């Protein structure tokens, strides 16, 4: 086989993968360089250039696609490396939720496995693509309209993604204490209200009036309301304990986690397993609001667990005393 034909074929394959404007120029240069390279290799080997040697030189030079990639202008990353774990987590949750919603339909016989496979199982993965496109557009928008003088342009909000925040020195315990100060009175009012909303509102509006639309369903009031109120009261007590305690303690964290988890579990049970209010419209509206409340709370709960789990734990030794301690 003609040596030049082998080189030309290789160069054409590289050129085909290059931007149109550079194709001919780089191709011509590469053609000459590879011929020089082959001539030099032949001199070293002490023989005339032949097809075998040409193939070896070109193989050593690299696959045509790799060579073209080296010449191609540096692209940009569709997704920033720090965003990848978030995309994988969110997409995995989306897939899991869709499967969890749809699989019971298969087990209860309302959908065949084949239907589930086509309608739910495979289509659930579309969320990966949606997220990649969304983040890609968001990143492009942020490159196109960069932050000037620390001010974020409005275009960044078109494809919103969690913006990286500037770190500022702060004391998380103080922040939590402030949050507890705000939450405690609201919690107290809600706890009192939910003990007997119909009675309370009736007394507030006109003394002794019957507010039938705020009356609990009997079963709920007898069985689920008492433990729910108990957990709410305990959480309230705990809030005050956090306020009075100067230090964050492992025990406090465990109690907080436990009470919060119990509270959420009871509320989920109430939403999905019980009729809460006797009056249908109130029940529907309250249940809708409760679902929204639960969604936000569950996200906060998961974030809190994650933050606690990833916190650096300092071993208790003398060498690790706080920097400003006088010990």
């Amino acid at each position: 086989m003609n040596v030049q034909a082998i080189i030309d074929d290789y160069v054409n394959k590289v050129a085909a993968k290059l931007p149109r404007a550079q194709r001919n120029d780089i191709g011509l240069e590469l053609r000459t360089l590879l011929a020089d390279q082959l001539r030099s290799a032949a001199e070293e080997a002490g023989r005339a250039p032949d097809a075998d040697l040409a193939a070896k030189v070109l193989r050593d030079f690299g696959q045509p696609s790799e060579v073209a990639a080296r010449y191609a202008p540096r692209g940009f990353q569709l997704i920033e490396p720090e965003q990848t774990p978030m995309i994988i987590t969110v997409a995995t949750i989306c897939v899991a939720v869709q499967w969890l919603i749809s699989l019971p339909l298969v087990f209860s016989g309302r959908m065949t496995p084949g239907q589930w496979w086509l309608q739910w199982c495979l289509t659930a993965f579309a969320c990966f693509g949606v997220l990649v496109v969304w983040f890609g557009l968001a990143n492009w928008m942020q490159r196109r309209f960069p932050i000037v003088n620390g001010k974020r342009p409005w275009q960044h909000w078109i494809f919103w993604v969690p913006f990286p925040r500037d770190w500022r020195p702060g004391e998380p315990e103080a922040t939590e204490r402030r949050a507890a100060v705000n939450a405690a009175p609201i919690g107290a009012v809600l706890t009192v209200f939910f003990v007997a909303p119909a009675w309370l509102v009736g007394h507030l509006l006109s003394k002794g009036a019957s507010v039938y639309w705020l009356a609990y369903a009997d079963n709920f009031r007898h069985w689920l309301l008492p433990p729910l109120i108990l957990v709410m009261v305990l959480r309230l007590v705990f809030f005050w304990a956090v306020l009075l305690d100067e230090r964050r303690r492992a025990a406090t964290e465990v109690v907080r986690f436990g009470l919060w988890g119990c509270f959420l579990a009871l509320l989920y049970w109430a939403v999905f397993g019980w009729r809460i209010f006797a009056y249908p419209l109130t029940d529907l509206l309250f249940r809708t609001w409760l679902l929204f409340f639960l969604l936000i709370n569950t996200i906060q709960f998961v974030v809190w667990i994650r933050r606690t789990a990833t916190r650096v734990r300092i071993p208790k030794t003398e060498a690790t005393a706080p920097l400003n301690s006088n010990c």
Partner: protein
Amino acid sequence: MYYVPHCDVRNMVANMVKANDDAAAKLDTELRRGALVLAVLAQLRSTQYGYSLRQALAQRGMPIEEGTLYPLLRRLEEQGLLASEWQIKDGPPRRYYTLNSKGVRMLEDLTTNWHGLVATMNGLLQQEGI
């Protein structure tokens, strides 16, 4: 008590040596990569084409893979540091590269930085007794 065959031990040692050599080769490549642009700019004070440049660098102890060097020349030209033109001297037409005025200034700046870096590194390495 475990019996480890002699040949397994030999393989393990060979693998460890190979892993160590691979790591050393990677670090050496990274170290050279930082100096690559400066080496190329320094050689392009006189006009060169791709292959002759590669040979000149190799002769002076700085071998560079051709697959790395040729695209690098293109990038430096795009950055406005090199001028290039097709010439026929002895053989087929070739693209010759040389520093332009911006490239000369860049070479001077990078050379100053390089000397500073070498002095700093020498200080660090001598301090550690290496």
